[in-house]
């Protein structure tokens, strides 16, 4: 049984950390640059996509979720599913209120 708990302590190569860091820095510059250009309705979605990508990189590599057990994955995914429920269900209300006007 002891083997089950002797979790393999994965040591991430420095290269991975530096690549994630580079991606995060580029993402920051990209989101800043995108905000200086008028893309009409696309500015908000693009900012959201870049921020979400950066967050996923941090969670997977800096927070080691990619190497962790399924139980940790369940907790991580469940917390974001709950967050998505909060946003999606609330916006089904607020974003559709104007419809009755048209």
């Amino acid at each position, binding site marked *: 049984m002891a083997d089950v*708990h002797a979790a393999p302590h994965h040591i991430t190569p420095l290269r991975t950390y530096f690549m994630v860091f580079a991606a995060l820095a580029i993402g920051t510059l990209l989101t800043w640059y995108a*905000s200086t250009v008028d893309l009409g309705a696309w500015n908000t979605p693009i900012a959201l996509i870049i921020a979400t990508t950066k*967050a996923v990189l941090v969670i997977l590599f800096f927070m080691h979720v990619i190497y962790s057990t399924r*139980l940790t994955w369940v907790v991580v995914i469940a917390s974001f599913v709950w967050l998505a429920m909060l946003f999606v269900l609330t916006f089904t209300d*607020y974003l559709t209120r104007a419809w009755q006007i048209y």
Partner: protein
Amino acid sequence: MSDLTLEAQEHVHHPFLQHQFEDLGQQHEASTLGMWVFLATEILFFGGVLMAYWIYRVIYPEAWALAGEQQNTLAGGTNTLVLIVSSLTMACAVRAAQLGSRRGTLALLFATLFFGCVFLGIKSYEYNAHWHEGLFPGLHFTWNEDPALAPKVQLFMVFYWGLTGLHALHMVIGVGLLVWIISRAWRSQFGPEYYSPVEVMGLYWHFVDIVWIFLFPFLYLIPHFGVHHG
């Protein structure tokens, strides 16, 4: 089981292995899982405030556009990069602890502490500027550009101070935790077998970084884009 074997077991036990766990691997697993459960509550805690922010952004796009222009994008962007660097040093500190390098762990934890303080310094500079511009919500709030929108601009500033304030509070707590982890690393309490506190500290620090990754575009970069389709 005789007393002798129990005593022998005591000897092989790591000093930081709590008695309810079979071994350090299981203890590490429980520590990180526990931190993630706490972070799940934090995600929903910040998520609730962000939800309210988005609802008012949809309702008052003009005020959000005006208020967004008051933000110091250079300061916010610099702070984003500062936090990303601090996350890199934090991740590398955990790695140094895993490899058993006391000197490396300490140096990287000190670097993380330094960048955390730089973030708070830049944030204080911004807060000070907003305070003098009359952009702190309350009795002394001043907005002369478009008086009709003043209450709504003030509402944006409530979210601005509330969200960045909660984030800064988390940063202050993180800096405090770092000092504690540094003092433990100083006393050589971590090594390849036992580094869970450094790892869990890292999880918290990275989470606070993620919150800022979202706050930066929401509060500094995109408020003025609501108008086009609002």
